[in-house]
């Protein structure tokens, strides 16, 4: 008894050139399907995160700060307006990390799905880019949602405020790509999350000029902001949402810094993924 109706054979049906050109999109498609399994959680986080933060810290703590700051405000605006662009960038980064770090650990270690992908015409480059593209989808979604909530809170003063979505996404993409590469190097993930959460994300969140201008920090702590994608995106976000003062040079510095990290992160991810799969 034959099990298959008509066997054409892979030589007739598989086109390796097509996979070489579009492989990253096939990986994105698979990652996206996996992500959809958590769609309600993702939507809940995207709503709850901005609403809770903007109310509790922005409004709650903000009213206290605004009273003391008087008419000058913080950086010339209300505390909520000052804080919101930083939280927007933070949310974008968190969204990016969720979809780049966890899938990378899963793919190399937990389920070894990257090895099954690599047994097809797909290569390490396709897999690295596919994971990145999907994390970009999540990042864009998160940033747009956050931005809409900011709009509802009335903290978007500038007509070009919508561009802050892009700078937040840029920060998410840059940080996500970098951490994806790092996750790809990891043989043992047990201490990884502790290190990332407590020694990287938390300090960056606290020391990147998120809650007060970076210049309020002692000079010997300001470097944390300088190496943090969050600070660079926050500065751009403040300029875009309420027109905080910034020099043209610094605009370029922020922009170039974020994109350099992004390019480096992607390059490193591709290399690290390819190497690890070929061991």
């Amino acid at each position: 008894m034959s099990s298959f109706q008509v066997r054409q054979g892979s030589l007739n049906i598989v086109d390796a050139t097509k996979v070489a050109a579009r492989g990253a999109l096939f990986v994105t498609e698979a990652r996206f399907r996996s992500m959809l399994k958590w769609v309600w959680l993702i939507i809940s986080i995207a709503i709850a995160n901005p609403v809770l933060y903007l109310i509790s810290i922005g409004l709650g703590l903000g009213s206290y700060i605004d009273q003391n700051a008087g008419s000058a405000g913080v950086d010339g605006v209300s505390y909520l307006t000052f804080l919101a662009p930083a939280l927007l960038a933070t949310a974008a980064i968190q969204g990016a990390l969720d979809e780049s770090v966890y899938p990378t650990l899963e793919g190399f270690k937990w389920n070894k799905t990257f090895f099954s992908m690599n047994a097809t015409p797909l290569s390490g480059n396709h897999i690295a880019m596919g994971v990145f593209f999907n994390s970009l989808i999540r990042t864009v979604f998160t940033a747009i949602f956050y931005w809409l909530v900011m709009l509802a809170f009335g903290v978007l003063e500038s007509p070009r405020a919508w561009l802050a979505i892009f700078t937040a996404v840029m920060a998410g993409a840059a940080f996500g790509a970098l951490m994806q590469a790092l996750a790809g190097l990891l043989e043992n993930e047990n201490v990884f999350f502790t290190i990332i959460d407590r020694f990287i994300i938390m300090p960056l969140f606290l020391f990147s000029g998120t809650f007060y201008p970076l210049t309020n920090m002692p000079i010997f702590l300001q470097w944390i902001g300088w190496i943090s994608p969050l600070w660079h995106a926050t500065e751009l976000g403040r300029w875009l949402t309420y027109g905080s003062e910034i020099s043209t040079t610094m605009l370029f510095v922020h922009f170039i810094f974020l994109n350099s990290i992004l390019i480096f992160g992607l390059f490193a991810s591709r290399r690290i993924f390819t190497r690890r799969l070929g061991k």
Partner: protein
Amino acid sequence: MSQSLIHARGLTKKFGDFTAVNGIDFDVVKGESFGLLGPNGAGKSTAMRMIGATSQRTSGELTILDKDPEKFGPQIRAHLGVVPQQDNLDTQLSVTENLYIYGRYFGLNRKFLKGKIEELLAFAQLEEKRNAKVESLSGGMKRRLTIARALVSEPEILMLDEPTTGLDPQARHILWDRLFRLKEDGVTLLITTHFMDEAEQLCDRLVVMDKGSIMAEGSPAQLIKDYSTKEVLEVRFGSERNSQMANDLRQLCERIEELPDRILMYTEDGEELLERVYKKGFHPKTSLVRRSSLEDVFLRLTGRTLVD
């Protein structure tokens, strides 16, 4: 294209100082079912990863479908179906989704995959589980799904690394039946196993591997003929007396192998030998006459059993 789909000469893989595969030679021709038999750590999986065009060789020649995997990895992998030793299904996704995304990795279009998935679900007897999450499947079902997944692209060569390890006897027999059908359909199979019965069931031809090298090559029947006798008499005297008895029994047959729990006596006629054992006044606690198997071939070649 030449007759031989896989061609290896002096194929070697080293990890630092350790030589995992040590200069092996073999050819696999179209439509045959070829096995790598050996214990864990013999270098079978490493050889499979080189043939699977994911791990590069240290030295030697290797062509798959007439291409060098060092230069044409993706082009070769486009025509292979790989079943790894450890299932690496996407556990977040359903049975159908796993087949679908894997087909997409080969660039296959949705319309083709729709029909193909139905065929594969029937082949793997997973029609009723089509929407189940992979997490909820039994070990045997996961294994069948991994095999079905490897067939989604109608590969020229299906590579199975220890296909039935960890499965219960019933699940193994279902799987063997599925693989046998593929063989009948003309799919070239490359199988590694440390189960001699599996090798005997599925392989037209095989190589026996140990410590990275090939010890012997041939069909299962030929190997048994060359390296063993027709029958084997297994006797047990209890673990303390076995080694003492082995010396006394040695003169009664062609060859003897002493294992911790039993003595194997190689002969053309097991019943006749057992009679002679009794006549000499030896009384084993238990005795069993059986045909020689690949296990005996391996024991002869290496002095060790396949499963430690």
